[in-house]
């Protein structure tokens, strides 16, 4: 056993972990992607610094005003905003980005104490912690400026509050990590957060429309929630400070004691989770379902008339794939939500769409087409290593692409129907003229996008996971060219609409779109033929990019 220390030194182990993290970071700078990542981090750090300073100043000014006006307990409002951010930001981050799996460290002879410390220390350098600490410092300074006698006490209380936040965040993350370890729960989490973000967008319009009516009810609910609020960490921290300001030190110390008890409790709960990990619980992608059920006879695939077997099979496969992608399904309901956002403006003045409801259908349809950009311009992205099957199978690439494009068409038609119904319910049914003209515009815009998308899917493929949000960047070439293409197509359509309306011959737009559609279809047909040879030429790039392990 030459060279081995008699006992393990946790400090050396922690230093080794920090060193290896540094090495990983330095090696990442040797790649183009790593440098871009670093540059984007610098940019984000700048934003965070700005957010931290601006937030600290804002919250500090607020705290100073509350203390000066003798409403010290209202500091709870400021602390709640910090608390919610501190909790939500890292959880959202863990859903949308890849996180470091610290349980990898368990293969080393790391003591439970060291492992626990690594988990806590890793969380202490999180952006949310840095921002949260910055904001709490602002609040402390604000209180100190308003009442210097409160400064030290407020600093102590808010220091404990900060530590409690770090512990809570780490505890929640430890559990979230458990749930995110499996694909299904990870996808459910993504969907929940996506819905949360969408509903936040609806808050503004709803408040504008119904704000007056619900205002008085909110006050009643607020009063009823006061005791609960006081027992919460932000409420207790505010109580500890306000009680001291009001000359009730016993209540103040008691509140601080409860805050401390919370911290211990949280550490114990987190310890339970960390202990389970430490004892060898497997948090990696485990088989989700080990229960077995009787084999069910395999039913034949879809019988799709007018389509050859490979094209039909491809269409079925694509629709099954997309149907199982929660994020994709949610993306597809976004046009309806956006219509609601733009349609639910303040009742008095209305929004652009409420003033010009006739335009809601073409706008909804155009937005739907734009939403499909990621799908259309990265045809093979979700296939991953399945691209090898396409290349080794006896099916021509153009049949495979045609099947994919038919799936996109099916989705778009479904979406157009949903948008039509939504517009009818929210405003009034689109006129026959507007409906057919919009469809004619789509008949022009879709083949252009599909054709261009087919070529770019081969030129610049990018592997994506349809099951998760975030980190799904298309290639830069695709992003740029698809933007140019969409701008051209949408611009062309808008100009046609406007000119036809201006000269008093709106039906002319319909004819122009039909004429453009004829050219667009010819272009699309050419891209299908071109894709065949291009795909074979670039098969190495396709397999290298799409089979890449992420």
């Amino acid at each position, binding site marked *: 056993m*030459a*060279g081995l220390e008699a006992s393990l030194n946790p400090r050396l182990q922690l230093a080794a972990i920090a060193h290896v993290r540094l090495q990983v970071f330095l090696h990442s700078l040797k790649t183009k992607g790593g440098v871009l990542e670093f540059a984007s981090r610098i940019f984000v750090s700048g934003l965070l610094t700005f957010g931290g300073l601006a937030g600290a100043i804002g919250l500090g000014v607020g705290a100073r005003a509350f203390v000066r006006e003798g409403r010290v307990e209202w500091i709870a409002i400021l602390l709640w905003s910090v608390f919610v951010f501190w909790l939500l930001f890292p959880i959202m981050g863990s859903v949308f980005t890849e996180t470091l799996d610290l349980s990898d460290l368990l293969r080393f002879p790391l003591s439970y104490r060291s492992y626990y410390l690594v988990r806590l220390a890793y969380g202490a350098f999180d952006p949310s912690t840095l921002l949260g600490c910055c904001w709490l410092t602002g609040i402390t300074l604000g209180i100190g400026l308003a009442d210097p006698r409160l400064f030290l006490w407020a600093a102590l209380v808010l220091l404990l509050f900060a530590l409690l936040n770090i512990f809570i965040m780490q505890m929640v993350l430890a559990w979230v990590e458990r749930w995110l370890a499996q*694909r299904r729960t990870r996808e459910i989490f993504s969907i929940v957060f996506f819905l949360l973000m969408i509903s936040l967008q609806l808050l503004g319009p709803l408040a504008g429309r119904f704000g007056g009516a619900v205002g008085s009810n909110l006050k009643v609910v607020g009063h009823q929630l006061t005791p609960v609020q006081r027992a919460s960490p932000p409420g207790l921290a505010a109580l500890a400070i306000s009680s001291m300001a009001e000359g009730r030190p016993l209540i103040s110390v008691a509140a601080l004691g409860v805050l401390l008890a919370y911290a211990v409790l949280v550490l114990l709960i987190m310890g339970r989770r960390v202990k389970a990990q430490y004892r060898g619980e497997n948090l990696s992608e485990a*088989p*989700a*379902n080990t229960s*077995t*059920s*009787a*084999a*069910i*006879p*395999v*039913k*034949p*695939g879809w*019988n799709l008339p007018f389509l050859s*077997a*490979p094209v*039909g*099979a*491809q269409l*079925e*496969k694509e629709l*099954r*794939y997309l149907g*199982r*992608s929660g994020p994709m399904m949610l993306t597809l309901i976004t046009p309806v939500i956006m219509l609601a956002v733009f349609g639910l403006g303040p009742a008095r003045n209305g929004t652009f769409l409420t003033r010009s409801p006739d335009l809601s259908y073409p706008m909804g349809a155009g937005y739907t087409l734009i939403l499909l950009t990621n799908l259309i311009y990265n045809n093979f992205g*979700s*296939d*991953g*290593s*399945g*691209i*090898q*099957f396409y*290349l*080794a*199978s*006896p*099916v*021509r690439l153009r049949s495979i692409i045609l099947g994919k494009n038919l799936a996109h068409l099916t989705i778009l038609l479904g979406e157009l129907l949903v948008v039509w119904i939504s517009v009818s319910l929210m405003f009034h049914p689109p006129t026959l003229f507007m409906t057919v003209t919009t469809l004619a515009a789509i008949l022009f815009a879709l083949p252009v996008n599909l054709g261009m998308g087919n070529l770019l899917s081969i030129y610049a493929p990018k592997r994506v996971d*349809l*099951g998760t949000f975030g980190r799904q960047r298309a290639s830069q070439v695709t992003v740029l060219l698809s933007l140019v293409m969409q701008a051209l197509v949408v611009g062309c359509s808008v100009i046609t609409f406007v000119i036809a309306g201006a000269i008093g011959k709106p039906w002319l737009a319909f004819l122009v779109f039909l004429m453009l559609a004829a050219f667009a279809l010819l272009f699309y047909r050419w891209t299908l033929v071109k894709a065949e040879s291009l795909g*074979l030429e670039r*098969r*190495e790039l396709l*397999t290298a990019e799409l*089979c890449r392990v992420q």
Partner: protein
Amino acid sequence: MDLAAIATEALTRRFGELTAVQDVNLQVAPGQFFGFLGPNGAGKSTTIKMLTGLLAPSSGTIRILGLDFQQHPVEVKRQIGVVPEGMALFGRLTGAEYLKFVGRMYGLDRETAARRAGELLEFMQLADQPKKLVTDYSHGMQKKLALAAAVIHGPKVLFLDEPFEGVDAVAAGTLKSMLQSMIARGATIFLTSHVLEIVERLCSHVAIIQRGRLVAQGSLDELRSTGVEAQVGGEDAPTHVEKLTLEDIFLRAVGGARAEQELSWLG
């Protein structure tokens, strides 16, 4: 005279300055279980990719069942089955959906594709979790599914890139018996593997590639009897009287030597 199931002539593949495969002349007769061996980075995967249409050769020709791959790609692909390195699965389909999809892409009608999918899932012991997505399968289950997909259309030539990697002993037994029954029915199998024991037990013929060049090719008995000196070309290579194992043949062909150096601090 029977046409070779697989024949290559001066097959070469260059990646810029690097020549990954150079002047490879392979001959695999119909009905052979052919093992393609080589150390890491020798050119095995590049060769199998060219043989299955996943990679274009820089020069040289490939003929499968007498058909030139470059001129008749679709006809050739119809006759072959492939389990490539990445397995070529579609993760968000169930096993049955994937097999039906593959069957229809190879021209099977809906009913036949469904029936064969069911039979293959049963055979591979994958039928008891019909709703499970492929992405949730274990590595071994994915390998079995990839092999099932490669044979659903009854190919005459099967290309397998490391088919037993990550597969447990029970599943490996199932796969081996299936492959042997295919050979018994006249199919040709071309496989690469790092596990020499498996190749020795299954294959009748082998070829060894080293730094992009074929350094040995023939039946196991031929290679054993000649001590591989005939094709290795080493003048010093002695003709062995005792029976050589495939490991001996392999090490001789690639010029490898067992490490004699001891790590004194180990153990």
